[in-house]
């Protein structure tokens, strides 16, 4: 049986169809109502659930059709945050960087109804998707809390409440992304403490996605992050993080990025499969999850599909190899 080996998934976001991109721009200019926009977001979500099923992914996501930025989405729904002005992230790309201007609080759940909707469309499991407290702080301006730790711990309670609501709504997988975790390696203890608040008492499988930055600077300490699975970009880094596992064995489940998300071209199935084989040198197949390096929101729908297909096809190749080898 190789069914439960090398479960495939994605990091969370997919490219938005053109009709939705246009609708979001119209809505931003006040030319489209919230109800009309949501209808299109639901349509796009349903399309992505169907596509993921067709591609053959094992654990699905809602694709985040209703989110722009992974921090701003939450900041817009939390008390205490102000939406800040535009700042550049790179090239000609700008985002509204949130400002923590007062004590943070969560008036209502922020992601639960989208999870419920996406899960209602499929019998495969859908992951609940949250941004972690350390990243929420690090990607915002902090005007309100005396220290970064104070702000992170306050945000941890909010993310915890959202995670519990997701679990109550039936989520068996909850992903709490911390792409900023290595921004200041000396603060890894704070990120770990905060994640402990978020995941305490959850029975769902917990996952954290980490990307873009010096992973070596927080390894092996990051193994203390209280989640079941770490989800890492590897293809973009030529799999060099795996070498860290030679000295300090990796002790969690590993979701391994085997296709780069920032290139228009997709790796061949052979190249992607080789990525899985590299991962298998360090992590057993029941604990290794092939997926793309990062969220796919910067890619077109067609490119997203191509990359996910490469992941699934590469996984089939390696599953076959595993089936031939007596355990």
């Amino acid at each position, binding site marked *: 049986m190789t069914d439960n080996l090398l479960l495939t998934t994605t990091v969370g976001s997919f490219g938005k169809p053109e009709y939705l991109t246009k609708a979001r721009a119209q809505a931003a200019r006040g030319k489209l109502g919230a109800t009309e926009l949501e209808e299109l977001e639901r349509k796009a979500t349903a399309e992505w659930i169907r596509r993921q099923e067709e591609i053959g992914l094992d654990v699905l996501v809602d694709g985040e059709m209703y989110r722009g930025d992974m921090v701003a989405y939450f900041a817009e729904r939390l008390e205490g945050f102000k939406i800040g002005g535009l700042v550049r992230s790179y090239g000609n790309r700008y985002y509204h960087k949130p*400002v923590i201007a007062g004590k943070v609080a969560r008036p209502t759940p922020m992601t639960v109804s989208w999870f419920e909707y996406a899960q209602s469309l499929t019998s495969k499991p859908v992951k609940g998707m949250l941004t972690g407290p350390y990243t929420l702080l690090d990607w915002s301006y902090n005007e309100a809390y005396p220290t970064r730790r104070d702000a992170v711990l306050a945000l941890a309670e909010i993310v915890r409440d959202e995670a519990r609501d997701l679990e109550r709504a039936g989520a068996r997988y909850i992903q709490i992304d911390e792409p900023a975790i290595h921004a200041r390696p000396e603060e890894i203890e704070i990120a770990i403490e905060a994640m402990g608040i978020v995941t305490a008492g959850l029975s769902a499988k917990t996952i954290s996605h980490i990307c873009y930055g010096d992973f070596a600077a927080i390894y092996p300490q990051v193994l203390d992050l209280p989640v079941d699975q770490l989800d890492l970009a590897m293809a973009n880094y030529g799999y060099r993080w795996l070498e860290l596992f030679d000295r300090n064995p990796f002790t969690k489940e590993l979701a391994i990025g085997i296709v780069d998300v920032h290139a228009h071209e997709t790796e061949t199935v052979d190249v992607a499969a080789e990525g899985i084989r590299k991962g298998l040198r360090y992590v057993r197949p029941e604990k290794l999850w092939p997926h793309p390096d990062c969220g796919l929101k910067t890619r077109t729908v067609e490119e997203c599909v191509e990359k996910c297909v490469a992941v699934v096809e590469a996984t089939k190749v390696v599953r076959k190899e595993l089936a031939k080898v007596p355990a």
Partner: protein
Amino acid sequence: MTLKTTVIGAYPKIGEGLDGQELRRALHRHDRGEIGDADLDKVFDEVTRATIGEIEAAGVETINDGQIRWDDLLAPFARSWSGVEAGPLERFYDNNTYYRQPVITGPISTEGRSFVRDFTFARGVAKARLKAAVPGPLTFATLTARDDHYRSLEERVLAVADAIGKEIAGLSAAGAHLIDIEDPAVVAAPRHIELAREAYRRLAGRGHALALVTYFLPPDAVLESLASFPVGVVGIDVRSRDTTAFERLDAFRTQYLLLGVVDARNTRLETAEEVAGYAERALKLVPEERLVLATTTSLEYLPRDVARAKLAALVGGARLVTGEKVIA
């Protein structure tokens, strides 16, 4: 005598309103092939002109051109020099801002005139003293993603230093009286401090007025070393982390000290009194004529309206120290 003030690095390229977003629109149109290079250049120049005007209007003493054409500290140089390309994106230190990592494919070379045209334009526009800037050799070399040519970090740092030296000579010949060398790696990777010193020896031999500008981290691990670098000005960030720098500033016996006191990475606005407070702490160990108040780093980490308010806080603080009346 008013305490001197200056800015560091890049200024926000766009503002909030639609009329503040010409450059963003022009770049989109350029990407789509709707406008050509000459049209885009015109917009770059206009935004540069407006930026210089804004920094001058705030009352900053030594200004720069806001680096409006630069998409990050390294890429403009990687694109201009032969032997280097602007490669994959990576996070720039502890910011949610990304840069193109240099990829070295062969021996680095440059005529050293990459930014002479831009500097000359800015100089024609500026009324205040205008300084130029280049990236630091240690930062460029340590943030390189791949090097197919040089055999060690040391070789790479020194080769980059030679290229930067040529750019410094070019800018200097174009009339730059002072050149910032933005080198955060000197404080972020203090283990390479002696290698950095060797690189700066190569830059200093040419007799130009140079400022070694560090940021993102305080200089605690290397402060006394920096004080013996062969540069006329040293810039330090005293806001991004806790620091013991204020107790050790007497190490700077001859250099000008560029003190990053206005936090360019947080929207919380300093009062003029707060800025003056930092200056007064420094003045216990550094004479007034060698102290320059500055932002901690590029104001581009902030929205433009906040950047403008930060400049006002900087200048207001500097005037407060010398007892001038602050006009709100």
